[in-house]
């Protein structure tokens, strides 16, 4: 079998497993309900996409990592516990292909859950957003579904980067029993620790304007927030930019996706040796 075919078979297996897992459906419903609740509670959805984004941005910074933990923490450890990884070895499946396939499968689940919930929010905005009064002529300004689409894309980038961190942390401890602790610790380290590092850097004066944009790009939450500010909310005011460097931040998020996956594959290879 070609590596591609193996990958495709493994991804297929992951997706079938996911499709059979009832708790994912529950999780999806819960996330959808929370986002819709926040959207309606925030009030911004009553008038447009950007206000809805503004309402959801900070809650999503917390919610997305939690969902990533729920989806990813036991994917590999449970395979390890059941000895399935060792069995895969007999089929000459490389650890990279295996980690990649597991990740793609889980990323698809995460994207479906978060993306689906955000699409639902988008539909709510599209259907309900309207000005308070029809006495005057109205328009939508720069507000548009495109901006909401950008928000969705960036949110998924962020979620999948955190998912990669989760996969790595779970490979580090390698047992289902301890995976949850390790994964939560890792996510906290990245989410809270990264932000704290930036804050400290600013407080101590280590980071100046030029390096701050780069530093922001290298911390997943900051990168996420920065891209949304720069390419979604910041569009409101012409000429006002510099919330972050979208390119650096996007590269940062991709690195947070690829580096942990590579590390996880390497670690697994070392374990199975």
């Amino acid at each position, binding site marked *: 079998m070609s590596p591609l075919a193996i990958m*495709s078979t493994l991804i297929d297996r992951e997706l079938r497993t996911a499709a059979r897992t009832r708790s994912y459906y529950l999780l999806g419903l819960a996330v959808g309900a929370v986002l819709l609740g*926040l959207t309606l*509670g*925030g*009030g*911004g959805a*009553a*008038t*447009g996409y*950007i*206000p809805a984004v*503004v*309402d959801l*941005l*900070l*809650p999503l910074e*917390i919610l997305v990592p939690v969902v990533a933990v729920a989806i990813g923490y036991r994917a590999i450890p449970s395979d390890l516990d059941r000895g399935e990884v060792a069995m895969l070895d007999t089929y000459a499946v490389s650890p990279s292909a295996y980690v990649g396939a597991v990740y793609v499968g889980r990323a698809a689940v995460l994207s479906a859950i978060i993306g689906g919930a955000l699409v639902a929010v988008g539909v709510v905005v599209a259907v309900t957003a309207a*000005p*308070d*009064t029809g*006495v*005057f*002529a*109205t*328009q*939508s*300004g*720069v*507000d*548009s579904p*495109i*901006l909401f*689409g*950008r928000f969705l*894309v960036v949110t998924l980038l962020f979620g999948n980067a955190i998912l990669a961190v989760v996969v790595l942390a779970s490979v580090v401890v390698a047992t289902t029993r301890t995976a949850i602790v390790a994964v939560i610790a890792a996510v906290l380290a990245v989410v809270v620790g990264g932000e704290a590092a930036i804050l400290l850097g600013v407080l101590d004066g280590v980071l100046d304007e030029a390096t701050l944009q780069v530093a922001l790009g290298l911390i997943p939450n900051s990168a996420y927030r920065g891209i949304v500010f720069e*390419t979604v*909310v910041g*569009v*409101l*005011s*012409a*000429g006002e930019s510099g919330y972050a460097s*979208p390119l650096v931040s996007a590269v940062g998020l991709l690195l947070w996706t690829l580096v942990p996956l590579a590390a996880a594959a390497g670690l697994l290879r070392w374990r199975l040796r």
Partner: protein
Amino acid sequence: MDWWLPRRWTVGLMLCLLVVGIPIALFGIPVDSAAPEPVPFEDTRAIGVASAEEVAADDTAAIPRVQVFYSQYQYVIGYYGLSTALAAIDEPTTRQQYGHPLVTYVTDYSNTAPSVGDDSRLDTEQVPAWTAASDAVFVVDSGAQTPAGAAIVPFSDRDEATAFAEQTGGRVVSWATLGEQSFETDDGAVVRDRVAAQRADADSWVAERTELLDRQRSVTVGPDDDLQAAIDDAPNGTTVALAPGQYPGPIEIDHPITLRGPGATIAGDGEGSVISVTADRVAIQGLTITGVGNQSRNPDAVAGDRWDANIELGYGHGDAAIAATGANDTLVADVTVPDTPANGVLLRRSPGGVVTNLSVAGPEDWRDGFMGVIAMYSPTVIQHSAVTDGRDGVYLHRSDGTIIRNNTFRENRYGVHLMYSSGVLVADNRMAGQSYGGITVMTDPTRNAIVGNLVHNTSTGISTSGSNSYLAHNGVTDSRIGITTTAINSLYEHNVVRHNEQGMRTGSVVATSEVTANDFISNDRHAGASAGPLRVWRGNHWEGALTTPSGRTADRAYMPTDPVDGQRHRSTTRRTVAASPVYQGLRELTGASPGLRSGSILDPGPVETPQNPDLVETTATLHTDGLAGVPAAPSER
């Protein structure tokens, strides 16, 4: 089916498109490329001329117009006059509330054969269409004048612009050049700076009219004499003195004399007005007037065909204790009208008058009565007077620059009712128990100042309208709504609203006013918002906004219209809800897109201590004791 790609390739390509192509495309598409088409001007929220109706009844081309689509504002804003629009676009508040202009349209005077008439009015033969401002050129210094100032006339066709400029002696400039100039409109702060001078003007205005009381006495009349004959015989510029007692009316004064009679009563026959004044510089002092007719309008009156003729007929021709028509510089002083079924004092086309220490009472039900003082086309000083049980305490129509101060109004429909009147000062009045409103401004006037008034137990304490006004140092208690902020581009500062159902309420979709340093205390809801964007009110004191369970105060934004935040001062339980991270996360960035939000108010910097301690104390007394508890003439500030 050779031309099909292998299935795997198709799937791969689709996935690639989904995961890479579409996301990248989303960031590549510019979001503000599609400019919306212009809308009919009537559909915009129009700003810039005191009473649009006056203009609407006129030629629509007389004022060049602008409409702006802002990047983060749902309503299309219309402006009368280019300078109004340019001033607004430059305004930092506008930037903050609406964002930047996505597209600006101006009325296009190409193909309309424009000319400037002898009256400096801009005339056209065709109705101007709309054109994008960035593509247009503009003729300035053409000599054309509009109610919004010197006209700046847009053309889409440069040759026509040049021709018009040559014809009128103006010059042609581009949109970019216009944008570099600075345009300013008088906002509320300018009106604030005017108030002191306006008070001083009123003082000298009153002093001049009061000199009419110094006229030499030519005759003293007793109750048995023929009063009308004595008045008719009195030489111009003298005083007719009345001995105490009752005199039959009605009487007419058609030349400049002074009528003085402390203790004298003039009793009308219940038909028409009791004293009619038709000459300039007449003074009436010290009389009691009874027997006023009960008609609030005169079926035989004629008022011409001006746009407001029906208003004049409806309000300006009723019976009155004293009716001055075409009588400039009238003085009415120390007059008592104990019971009128119609007006107390009516001034029609009689500018320059002074009404001081007048007392008017109407029937128990305001529907049976009319106005305490009505001034039509008659700028007047109305002071130290009292009106009870009338329809309106004071009703103004087109009486710019009137001063209404230190009066007391009880149990009327409206205490002070401004129609089509700009540049008015309403100061230091006290009012209680009006059915509809304390001070009610209608019809979009401009540059009004409402200062230092106390309103108690009224439906809507102070209801504003129009633009560029100044509302300050007012105290409203125990009312349904304290103060409305309908007047745009205005300054609302140092007011105290307490024990109202709603302290303040927004009323305009245009959020260009500054609302600051006001105290909101013990209202059911400190503030409510009607249709429109998020309003940002900075630096007010909202009782309970900052208290925390530890008893200390927190540094935080406050949203009075929010069901959680807005009830902090009434419900400690809601403070627990407000401390939730979810709630705070939702609220943290709310102010980021005010123009795209709706029906809400945010104070990003609420202050802990009341900003107006004296007025807070006064309104506390007003709340417990009503008008009886507060001094009759609030000290001037």
